[in-house]
């Protein structure tokens, strides 16, 4: 299970097993989506599979995730998402009504994201061999001229911005999956980020890196960027936008909000001279209304993420190994 957690084990599976076997230059640097030249255009191309229990949770469903996850992977290359494929893996015995609800959610999310589902596939597996419904989506989008956003483009001096409160999706799913009551309803932040990225690119095409901090959370995303670009990242712990309800839930379970999944947030590495203007554009967009500068790129400790604590000490923010496990007491 750890190999699917979005941490070190996931990365190693891709780096040591899949990438060498495929041998494609497009996989270099492991961006969220591949940017391919086709004719005169640059196309971003990405795929993702969605396995979530329960299928419906506060603030979204597997259908919303299936659209927004792939749309956001395209947007992290600066692409304007255009078309999706959608493949269903259904478990024998799943209610048709459930499948219809998921399909409705996919349609609605696609319309909201401004993309069209252009092709698809359906397979059924025997009862007991699936969790009701699995969905895979792939997507393509156009990358505007002059835009070059890659995980290996961060340089010392870049300002690190996060688009809003972190940890909501992971805690929302956990609250219903495990039947935990946190005293307040916590909703997933699941949302398509193409519009927010377009608003940022309208300020400057020179965004260095964008990443949506899904599995493994902000910590995994920042570590991947630090490793890809061979830069250090210095976070200011006090600047991290952690909603009180997420902080409380994480404190209860012994989890760190930095490692909890998000589905409607991005982290951006922006040249310092553009940082204020990009932040202003984000704040003016509904999906960036909670945007904050959380740190910067530094020469020190290349490949590592370090946080300055509230009291002025420092600590390493490591890559998660696999999934976080709630503590015993």
């Amino acid at each position: 299970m750890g190999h699917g957690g979005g941490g070190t084990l996931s990365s190693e599976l891709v780096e040591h097993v899949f990438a060498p076997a495929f041998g494609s230059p497009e996989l270099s640097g492991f961006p969220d989506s591949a940017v391919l030249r086709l004719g005169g255009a640059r196309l971003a191309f990405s795929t993702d599979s969605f396995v979530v229990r329960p299928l419906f949770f506060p603030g979204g469903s597997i259908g919303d995730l299936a659209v927004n996850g792939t749309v956001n992977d395209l947007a992290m290359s600066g692409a304007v998402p255009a078309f999706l494929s959608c493949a269903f893996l259904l478990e024998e015995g799943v209610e048709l009504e459930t499948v219809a609800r998921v399909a409705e959610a996919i349609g609605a999310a696609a319309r909201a994201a401004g993309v069209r589902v252009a092709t698809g596939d359906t397979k059924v597996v025997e009862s007991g061999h699936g969790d009701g419904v699995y969905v895979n989506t792939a997507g393509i989008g156009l990358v505007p001229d002059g835009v070059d956003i890659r995980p290996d483009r961060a340089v010392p001096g870049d300002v690190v911005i996060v688009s809003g409160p972190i940890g909501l999706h992971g805690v929302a799913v956990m609250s219903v999956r495990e039947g935990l009551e946190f005293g307040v309803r916590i909703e997933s932040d699941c949302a398509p980020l193409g519009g927010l990225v377009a608003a940022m690119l309208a300020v400057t095409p020179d965004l260095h890196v964008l990443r949506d901090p899904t599995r493994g959370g902000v910590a995994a995303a920042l570590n991947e960027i630090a490793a890809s670009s061979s830069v250090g990242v210095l976070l200011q712990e006090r600047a991290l936008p952690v909603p009180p309800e997420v902080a409380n839930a994480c404190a209860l379970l012994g989890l760190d909000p930095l490692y909890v999944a998000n589905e409607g947030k991005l982290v951006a590495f922006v040249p310092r001279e553009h940082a204020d203007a990009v932040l202003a554009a984000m704040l003016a967009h509904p999906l960036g209304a909670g945007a904050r500068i959380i740190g910067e790129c530094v020469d020190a400790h290349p490949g590592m993420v370090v946080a300055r604590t509230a009291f002025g000490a420092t600590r390493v923010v490591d890559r998660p190994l696999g999934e976080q496990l709630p503590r015993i007491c």
Partner: protein
Amino acid sequence: MKYLDEFQDPELARRLFDDIRATVTRPWALMEVCGGQTHSIIRHGIDQLLPEEIELIHGPGCPVCVTPLEMIDKALEIASRPGVIFCSFGDMLRVPGTGRDLFTVRGEGGDVRVVYSPLDALRIARENPDKQVVFFGIGFETTAPPNAMTVYQARRLGIRNFSLLVSHVRVPPAIEGLMTSPDCRVQAFLAAGHVCSVMGTEEYPQLAERFRVPIVVTGFEPLDILEGVRRAVRQLERGEHRVENAYPRAVRPEGNPAARRMLADVFEVTDRAWRGIGTIPASGWRLSEAYREFDAEQRFEVGDLTTVEPAACRSGDVLQGLLKPHECEAFGTVCTPRTPLGATMVSSEGACAAYYLYRRLAGAPTPVEVAPVG
């Protein structure tokens, strides 16, 4: 669930740091008993910011770390059997037994489930009457009462396919064991607040008096710990050795009487082996005679299983405060969260895990010098 921001306030922390600096005149060694306190200290960098005279020694209070190897192996043996649903808190799944862990058993087809409450395991037992459901009951005085309650409920509801693999431990005998060791350097204790919220503070005055050590009951947020350090240092500087409660919002002298009654009903005190440390007299609980039928060791006949701890792991020294994690030769080289030699490297409250997670810059425990952001 408020009490978070209030107890992480940098300005209040600065005042406490200043007060401690103004009080301390010579070196003192304080032990924080609980692994949760250790993680808070390392995560927030409290030890980096305290005056150099104050050494924080990390104690044995990580329930996952001290669960003996043979108990882990018993869990692995039971979880591997067909017809068994083995339930555990999440952080036990990565703890290495002899050659494998509970994740491995699950990967091999064993039905190992993470639960958030022992009562969830009881629910699973009700829903699966044709299976044997076992809950791994480990931990200190904090987790023992709910586990006792689960067995009590199982009997009340007539659920026979449920049992408890018990490896509970008690803090006061561990403190006594530490203080009677000839290597002990501890001059004051920060006692674990959540343990005292259950058991109260009645067991501590005799320890403070006998060993002439201040014991300050402390919470887990940074300001809780700083207040505990402040009070302990003040006592040490004055030559005092009292029990103080610096966690009054959670701890009353009598503790939680209902939880204590449940413990006394379902469990009885027994000698218990601590991983890396050895057997400490009267330091554990087992099911009392009246509830012995719910004992998984008996039900699955694994009581005879014994194992040998690998010599390379020095987690026992770490747990007794004799060795800092980074001083271990194996730390960060052959011993990492992926290839742990002992539980201290994988437990969410383990001292080795705290150093590995938060201090792993060039292998040194010192902070890096970095310029503040803009």
